Every structure is written in structure tokens, then in C-alpha cells.
């Protein structure tokens, strides 16, 4: 039987929304306080959903320890307590939460093979979040 397993992780990181090709005024206009020059930070929550057949012996879609280990190496070690603007993944992209969510989806889908990656949801604050789902 196919089930979906979701796990939530925390990443504390700073960022600044700024496009080099824009003028200072354009950046202020488009990004508002997110463009303040020295950056700011968030407690992000990353929710990862994977799916698969529940193994008859273990009762699991995948071993949580494998998912935790993959997220630790790929995401937490890299992004937690870091400045997203300095990350190579954002060398050409603004570290909006949309782009952060997309980067996380790409990193996980390229590395985690114990179950199908269904969805990545990144909560920037308790009031806004972004989701990317696997293409049907």
C-alpha cells in the first residue's frame, strides 16, 4: 500500500533580496524591507514529503534515519546558520523562499533514492510558505 511520509526540519539562515541588475531604487521598490543592505534572517521550516509502498517487514515507506541523514548532509550542514546569499546555489538567483524551495527540491531529488520525493514545503515564517510538488 502506498503511503506518504512527511518530516519537518529547521534551518536558521540570513538573506537579502537584491538583484544586481536593478538600480538601488528599483531594488527598494521591488523588495522593500527585504532589501535592507545588511540582510536579515528567518527560522525556516522545511517539510519534506516522500512516498512509496509500505514495506511489509519494516512497516516503513523508507527508513527515517536515511532521510534524516540525507537532509542533515545536504541541507542542514549547508544552510543552517548560514547566509543564503553567499551560497553557490544563489550565485545567480535571488534567495527568495520560492528559489530556496526549488533548490532544496533539486538537491533532494538528485540524492535521495529510498522513496519518491513528492513535495518540499518551506515555511519562511508561520504566515507564509512555499511548496513545490513532483510533476505528475
Amino acid at each position, binding site marked *: 500500500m502506498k503511503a506518504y*511520509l*512527511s*518530516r*519537518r526540519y529547521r534551518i536558521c539562515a540570513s538573506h537579502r533580496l537584491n538583484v544586481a541588475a536593478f538600480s538601488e531604487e528599483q531594488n527598494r521598490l521591488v523588495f522593500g524591507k527585504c532589501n535592507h543592505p545588511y540582510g536579515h534572517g528567518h527560522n525556516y521550516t522545511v517539510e519534506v*514529503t516522500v512516498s512509496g509502498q*509500505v514495506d511489509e517487514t*519494516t*512497516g516503513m515507506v523508507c527508513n527515517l534515519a536515511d532521510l534524516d541523514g540525507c537532509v542533515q548532509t545536504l541541507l542542514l550542514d549547508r544552510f543552517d546558520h548560514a547566509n543564503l546569499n553567499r551560497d553557490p546555489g544563489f550565485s545567480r538567483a535571488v534567495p527568495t523562499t520560492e528559489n530556496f524551495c526549488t533548490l532544496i527540491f533539486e538537491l533532494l531529488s538528485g540524492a535521495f533514492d529510498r522513496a519518491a520525493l513528492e513535495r518540499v514545503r518551506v515555511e519562511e515564517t508561520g504566515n507564509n510558505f512555499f511548496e513545490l510538488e513532483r510533476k505528475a
Partner: protein
Amino acid sequence: MMLITRRADFSSSHFYWSDRLSPEENARVFGKCANRNGHGHNYTLEVTVRGEIDPVTGFVLDLKELKEILRREVVDAYDHRHLNLELPEFRHTVPTTENIAIAIWGRLRERIPGASLHRVRVYETPDLFADYYGEA
């Protein structure tokens, strides 16, 4: 078509152990969850049903009735119980979050008048949950 979700809570103990695996394999696969003395969680159950809105009552179904069904079929059976030792569905099936969601689906299917079961979501902790949609 409308989706309606009702939450309920139960607190239970369990452990992860498969007789198909050796003691060493159980320890390797399940880690601290394989401790045969068991441990416990405050589970949160989220049941989502699907149906048409009755033009007279404005209800898909009476939520009091859904609450009562969840209490009778799930909470009364699972709350303050040892899932491995007291629930027939886990006598030979590991009570992982995935399998709990599947078992609750089985308990509720065909028992919700006027609406069909859409999703069973079981939170083991606020950061870990499993979804089952009745898929094979």
C-alpha cells in the same frame, strides 16, 4: 465537492519489531524504537472526508457525528493503549506511523455516512506525519 477535516488525539505506546528480522537486524533498522519495553507518543489524527454540501443544512456531514465516529472507532481503541500488545491490527504488523494511518483508514472506511474518506493523516510528533489516501 468539499473536503472537511476533523482532528482527534490519542496517546499510545508502541515499539518497532519484526519477527522476520533477527534481533541484530531489528536493532539496526529500527534503532531506539526497537526497545522491547516500548515508548509512547501523543498522536494527532486528522481525518479528511469528501462530499457534496447539502443544500438545506449547508453541511457535507454533521461534524458532531464525525467526531463521535472517530471517538468510537479509533480513540476509544487506541488511546492509552499499547498498540503492539492490545490492538489486533498490530499483532503481526509493525505500528509505524504509516501502518497506523493505513489501519485507521480500515477502521473508518464505509463507516462515514454521507461522505467518503479522502485522507487519513497521523502525526506521531508535530514534525513527523504519514498520509494514506487508500491507495494500493
